């Protein structure tokens, strides 16, 4: 779990969190909104009984797309940004997909996992701000 969280943290810090100037609304909720969007997508896809590989890849794209939306952009700045966010998103989605498989789609245990990840990310984003 730690490895994908750290990958996600690195990608978000590099390509998302550092885009918030101090003057802007940089509430912690906004900082984790792309991750929430992605997890919501995974949950819906799992419940629709779709293909794991395809949907986890799509979840990776969803993370990038949400980051772009939240930074008011239509396109990524470069391939590195697109790749980092995609891969981090895909790994996180795969982890959660497996969790859903294990708990047979139990929403409360899924929500616990999501909260754990989000808390870790919020901590990191706050640290990023302090830095």
């Amino acid at each position, binding site marked *: 779990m730690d490895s994908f969280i750290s990958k996600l943290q690195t990608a978000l810090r590099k390509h998302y969190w550092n885009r918030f100037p101090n003057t802007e609304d940089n509430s912690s909720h906004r900082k984790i909104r792309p991750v929430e969007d992605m997890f919501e*997508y995974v949950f*819906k*896809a799992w*419940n*629709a*009984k*779709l293909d794991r590989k*395809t*949907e986890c*890849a*799509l979840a*990776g*794209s*969803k993370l*990038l*797309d949400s980051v*772009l939306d939240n930074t008011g952009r*239509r*396109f*990524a700045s*470069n*391939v590195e940004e*697109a*790749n980092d966010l*995609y*891969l981090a998103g895909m790994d996180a989605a795969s982890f959660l997909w497996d969790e859903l498989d294990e708990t047979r789609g139990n929403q409360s245990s899924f929500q616990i996992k999501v909260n754990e990840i989000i808390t870790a990310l919020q901590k990191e984003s706050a640290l990023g701000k302090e830095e």
Partner: protein
Amino acid sequence: MRNLKWHIVAVTIIALSLAGIYFSTHLFIPTSAQGAPRIIDVETKQFAFTPETIHITTGEEVIFRVTSTDITHGFYIDGFNIFTDVPPGETVEIGPVKFNDPGKIKIRCATLCGPLHPFMVADIVVEPNTPYYLFFAATIVVGIGSIVYLNKPRQSPALLKRLFDFEIDLLKIKKIGPLLKRVLQWRGIHFALLLPNLLIFVIVLASGFFGNPMGALNFSIAVVWILWFAAVEFMILFASRFWCTVCPLPAFGEWLARRRLAAVHEPKKWFSLKKVWPKSLDNIWIAALGFLGISLIIPWLVTRPVVSGLLFITLIVAALVLHLIYTERHFCLHVCPASAYIGYHASASLLAVRSRDKSICDKHIAKECVRGGPKGYGCPWKRYPGGLDWNNYCGQCFECLKACPLDNMTLKYRAVDKDIQAKTHTKTDEAWMGFIRFTLAVFYELVFFGPYFWIKDWGNMGITMGANLLSINLLTPTLQGFRNWLGWAVIVSSVALIIFPAVFFVFSWLAKRAAKDKENTSKNVFLAYSYSLAPYGLLLWIAFAITLVAVNWAYPMRAFSDPFGWGWNLLGTGNLAWRPFMSNYIPLIQAPIVFVGLVLAITSTHRIGLNLFKDQKKAFRGTAVMGALHTLMAIIFITLLMG
């Protein structure tokens, strides 16, 4: 300096040829024949004039004594304001008519007389047929000139480079580019473009089944087989597969499979079995043979509304079923006859969807253009858009433009032979698509605008009646009619599938020998050279389309006002008189188009030769041999048009 000299020579030759054509047709006219006007008896019947070809001397005065052996026909001569009815049992005298301009012109039936009426023509050859002789000579000059020009590698002058070797990123043009990008990336654009077309299609089907059985009076024939048929050829050249963007045939299947009209991925199951398309059918053989098959019944298809209606319904059902089994656009890729030829020639189109920088696409891991993403579906044509270098299989759905998060996909306007320059692989099915299309351009010109009745009659199975769903039984042919059609089908198929490819193979084999090449197999050289037919064939079809529209434009205009042929006049064009547009000048417009096709074929052949042999000298030798064949083909086409 040397280059400049060559260009001066080339321009001088072209200028002299054009001046020669003008002066010989207008100044050196033989003195007119003496005495009373010559009387020429012309007999009309469904759908022929007898004699089929009339020879007249320039300056001669002629009186046509016209009779009809069956129903009322009309008599119109290109370039003369003569529109006369010829009722059965009467002898109508037309003239005296004085023929001052040498050349070939057409007599056309001017009164609706049955399904093949628009194609009831005869030839008048006003001797000496100097325009033909001059264009014949000009064809040879253009052919040899193009080959000689390619003798040495040259740096094209700036003007030529700008005309023939350009590439413009349309989405980066100031002001227009960003607007176009927004439009193409809007999810609703596909649906918005499709919707009006879908409504038209409903009218096509309804009129096909229940409208007037006479093709010329029916929307399904007049709009589809005159307007659409011609427009698509121009569309291919200027807008590539734009027709596929707005084609309603696969729409139902796609909407049903995706379970949405315009929106993109949401976590929902597709309504499809998602089967894998069989590997043995991963080609365009079905589509290419389908196009040939449809062409074998073309005299029926383009004149009988019910036949068109049945074809469209069959295609829609096929598209729907295939979508539900295989999900993606396998119908368009492998089955649709129109898609096959549009795709084949689209490689010679000015427009292309391409990546801005291939290396970015290669580095990009997610490849939303293939898999799909939050803003766009993955390529429904099962391609990797980032690596596209060939227009054949890009359906211009613009999903890759929407899906790409890197803004690396764009729309390019480029020189017509860019794809051929980049072509690295050859395919037998594509080569045969080229042979079929090229052969059929000649056959269509012969069937529809040639004077030879037997060709039309054999293809038509001797039937004189039009038909909708209620009178479909009228299409039952006699045994003799069916036998004739079988003969016609064998002739057309043999030429398209065997004879022309065989001739092409012999020439490509000779080209390989002339190039003294030992690296490539004969088959590889043959297949590679066949791609020169993509631009050439397209230009021949454009030449054909010009006649189709210039002569018959009034029928679609009428059909817009009266789609069912029931006497309506919704838009005020329902009673528009049939008046061909500049029909006596059509060959003079067509011939230069054929020349452009010839030049493109020869330059493409040379590019292919350079790719194959990696040596200028060898490429030139190969081009010289293949250029001779291309020139010969142009002469045949020019002879059909003017001889």
